[in-house]
């Protein structure tokens, strides 16, 4: 399939990825490794197999289906050897309990568009549209431009949810096709950023300045994460930096939740973060106040 990419999920009635009622498209592949990532199934560029042990009934159908002998039933229990798995999906197609799921479906822009256009009435009535997320969708500018063209020809606005760590030329190419950027700013301190996400944030902040200068419409999203950036000093630094952007719009503070933990187990990954309580409401309110003091239009989302 020419121009197709691996899509992990098409989420309709998505309400928290930009304004209005939206459909969010999750593309596979990311070049950050945030310790708190709640979409770990999208880190790899290629498909991955999720195994939800709790749903498995040890029926053994997957054992027969797998050409790699990755599944075994031992003493009535299911043992999965992930190292052998080549993510062909054969086992998932015979598993009837939902215990096995192959994430990543090669989807052409046209096929994608056919799904996206189904909710056009809801986009129109609510000021919503389509959001590309991931993973890091900005790593796939050609694909997104293709899909965005189709959408915008039908008056469907397109947003891009990005972590910012891609060469600026990608954004330059995307700019004319994107109505709104959802841009993550995780912290200001580069070494802190490097420690928690695997890369420092110099390029990310630079890109943001450049996008601002280029006149892009954007919403800043700041995940507030215990242990990482949920302290007033760091929030203060972020706020001060954001206040230097002349064309800034809305700033959303996103309190951390332990949503993704189950998915780590299903992927055989370790969860990089200790299980944390979300930041307290008092802290969020204080942080919000701090942003507003800097003249920022901020909200807790």
């Amino acid at each position, binding site marked *: 399939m020419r121009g197709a990419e691996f899509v992990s999920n098409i989420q309709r009635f*998505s*309400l928290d990825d930009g304004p209005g009622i939206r459909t969010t498209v999750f593309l596979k592949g990311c070049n950050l490794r945030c310790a708190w990532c709640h979409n770990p199934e999208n880190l790899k560029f290629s498909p991955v197999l999720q195994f939800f042990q709790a749903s498995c009934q040890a029926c053994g159908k997957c054992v027969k289906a797998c050409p790699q002998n990755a599944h075994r039933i031992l003493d009535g229990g299911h043992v999965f050897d992930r190292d052998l798995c080549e993510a062909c999906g054969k086992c998932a197609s015979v598993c009837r309990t939902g215990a096995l799921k192959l994430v990543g479906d090669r989807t052409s822009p046209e096929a994608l568009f056919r799904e996206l256009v189904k909710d056009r009435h809801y986009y129109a009535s609510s000021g919503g549209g389509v959001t590309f997320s991931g993973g890091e969708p900005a790593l796939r500018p050609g694909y997104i431009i293709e899909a965005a063209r189709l959408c915008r020809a039908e008056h469907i606005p397109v947003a891009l949810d990005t972590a910012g760590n891609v060469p600026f030329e990608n954004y330059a190419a995307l700019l004319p096709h994107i109505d709104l950027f959802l841009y993550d700013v995780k912290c200001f301190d580069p070494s802190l950023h490097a420690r928690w996400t695997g890369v420092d944030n110099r390029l990310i902040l630079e890109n943001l300045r450049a996008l601002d200068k280029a006149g892009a419409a954007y919403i800043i999203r700041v995940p507030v994460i215990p242990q990482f950036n949920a302290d007033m000093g760091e929030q203060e630094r972020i706020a001060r930096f954001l206040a230097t952007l002349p064309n800034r719009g809305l700033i959303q503070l996103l309190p951390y939740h332990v949503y993704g933990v189950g998915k780590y187990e299903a992927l055989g990954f370790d969860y990089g973060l200790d299980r944390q309580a979300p930041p307290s409401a008092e802290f969020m309110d204080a942080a919000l106040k701090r942003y507003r003091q800097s003249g920022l239009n901020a909200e807790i989302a």
Partner: protein
Amino acid sequence: MAAQKLEVSDRVKAILDHRHDDHDRSQIPTRRPIYEAAFENYAEEGRDIRIAMGFKRFLAEKKILIREHDILAGFAYRYTYKPSFPFNLPDDYDPLYRPPAGIDTCQEAEDAIVANGFAADSVEAGEMRAFAKCVSKWFYKHWETGHIIPGYEMLINTGFGGLANEARQRLAEADESRKPALRAMLICLEAASGYILRYADFARDLAEKTETPAYKAHLVEMEASLRHIAHGPARTFFEAVQLIWLAHEMLYAESFPASFSFGRMDQYLYPFYVNDLKSGKLTDAEAADILDALWIKFGITLHGYQNITIGGLNERGEYASNELTIMMLRSSRKTLFDQPLLCLRYHDSMPDDVWEESVELLKTGIGLPAIFIDEFCIRAKKRMGHSAEDAANYALVGCVEMACPGKEYAKTEALRINTGKILEIMFFNGKSNCLGSTGIIGNAVDQSLKLTDDHGEDYVYPLFTGYRIDAIDDFRAMLDWYKEELKAHLAYAMTSINRLDSALPKCYPTPFLSVLIEGCIQNGKDVTAGGAKYNNSGVNLCGLPNVADSLAAIQKLVFTDKRYTLKDFQDAMKADYVGYEDMLDAIEHDCPKFGNDVSAVDDIMAELVAAAESVVNGFGNPRGGHWQMGLYSVEDHVKMGINTGALPDGKRKGEALASAVSPVQGKDVNGPTAAVNSLLKTDLSAATNGMVLDIKFSPSFFDKTSHHRALRMLIQAYAQQGGGEIQFNVVDRETLLDAQIHPERHKDLVVRVSGFSAYFTSLIRETQDEIIKRTEHAGV
């Protein structure tokens, strides 16, 4: 999120705390002997007069009640309704639980055979008996009384005295044929005035005894009001509410209160409210207390389907909400009862305060308000012959049916058809694999409804086309056959109801209800005889999403993939899929399901509805009205499901059918917009008797205020694309599961069932399971 229950005033709290003291079960069987005595004394009179005399005597003798701390006088019971109507309700039901109640259709059919002049061994008599049997086996469902919005608005502005004057005048001019009905109505009107005067005396006596000064003062005022409204129209907000309640209470005395509803209460009470505020007679706090007190009276009748409609466009096309709209939403949030069913008329121009207040109520999880789309409903009423003005004034009755307040005798629940069972018996030459349990009503299996001859599994249901399953060799033929059977069943069942209806004025007239429906006094005709301005009948389809999924599975597995044959389906259904697990797998995973925005199955649904409409549209009834079609199921999708065997969509024997035209429970996996889109491929304007789309949200959905707006936008898009009704369930799964294990901890848990809300613990187990299985949307 923590949905907020609102506090009530101390005065209202006293009423709330004592509300269960009023139950006096000894009252329930008092009606029958009084009516029987009146029937005997007036043996030489016609049925109208005898029933009116029964009513009069009963009102003169029945217990009445005012509590000193209460704001309103009165208390309503459901009685046993024989001998004026063939209705089964046990003498000793506990009003704290839902009464097992139902029409005795076998008796009704026998009465109608005689009244219609059919010979006992005629073809017609045979058809009517067969129909009644199908009803008792939940193949069809038939309901008779009480889905109506009486002319309470007319009453508060005219008074019983005004109505009696008019009836006297008409009687003086009437020809002989109209005199009995008019005399009966006049007897009822006089009885009603007398009844209110009894309350006035009660208030006077109580005022003398009462020691609390504030109560005493109120009782003195109450007495004066009661003496006035015994004949006169209401002068104040209080009098309007009091008169409505007492008229409601009297309707309970006449016939089973299946769904006596109130129309657009925020609209017609508003002038009284404004006047009283201006003249200083009333404060907002007092108005709220009066409404709360009324809400508590409603709450006594579990499953009373007492609808109150709020908001909506007025005759000038403007959205008409006011202070009372908000107050009524709050009364529901203060009480959190299953009653009244609050219905919000939606239009894009609805102000934000009404929506925000509605969201606060939705958040509590009680499934209220249900939301009705004005464009859809007004169009439906016009299509059924209502004038533009009357159509714009529609309100809700029953679950989701639109009716013209005070002008319409539309028997919206006259008939429901189990469309799933039609498909089942097509595989077995008219037989079903499910004996089921006949006569399940409420929580109880009512033995008296059992058929005298036990047909068991060998009972042969009617099939009309003469085709056989083994002769079907392509999908078109299968689909067309189903459509033919569906149409034939509709015609047969509607004809049967028409025959029952022809007998109504002769057998079970309701003269008191007639005085509260405009046109009956003027025409000198009982409502059952066509006295009202509008006279339609409703037929409702149940289980259609299962049929659509079933036919889609057959199309895919038998005719496209050729993995199975129709014979395989027949065998699997007979075995209830035991030993056919692979086939169940294939149905589950490889076939499209309604509710996911997949045209292969959504288009089948559209075709089924269009086929049904082609018969219903234009089918007349004996009152000069027409039949209208509904796509809602009350709770009957559960009861009909219990009485239906396995179906090709993977439904097992005894499992619930889909609720209304919502996706089969748990089969919609693409979110609410996909579910809505699936449904909108059907031309819903066919649903002139109403429809239900049930969407379930987890409580956390409401955490964010941005989601409140999104929900409104979902409704707006639904409205713009032709949707009719939408309602929301907001209780999480864990709570519901816990309520099954520990019902005692969740006595006050109210949930949306289908077109109505109810206490979860009052529902039969199968209905509870059905609600738990519905897909829950989080909004991500």
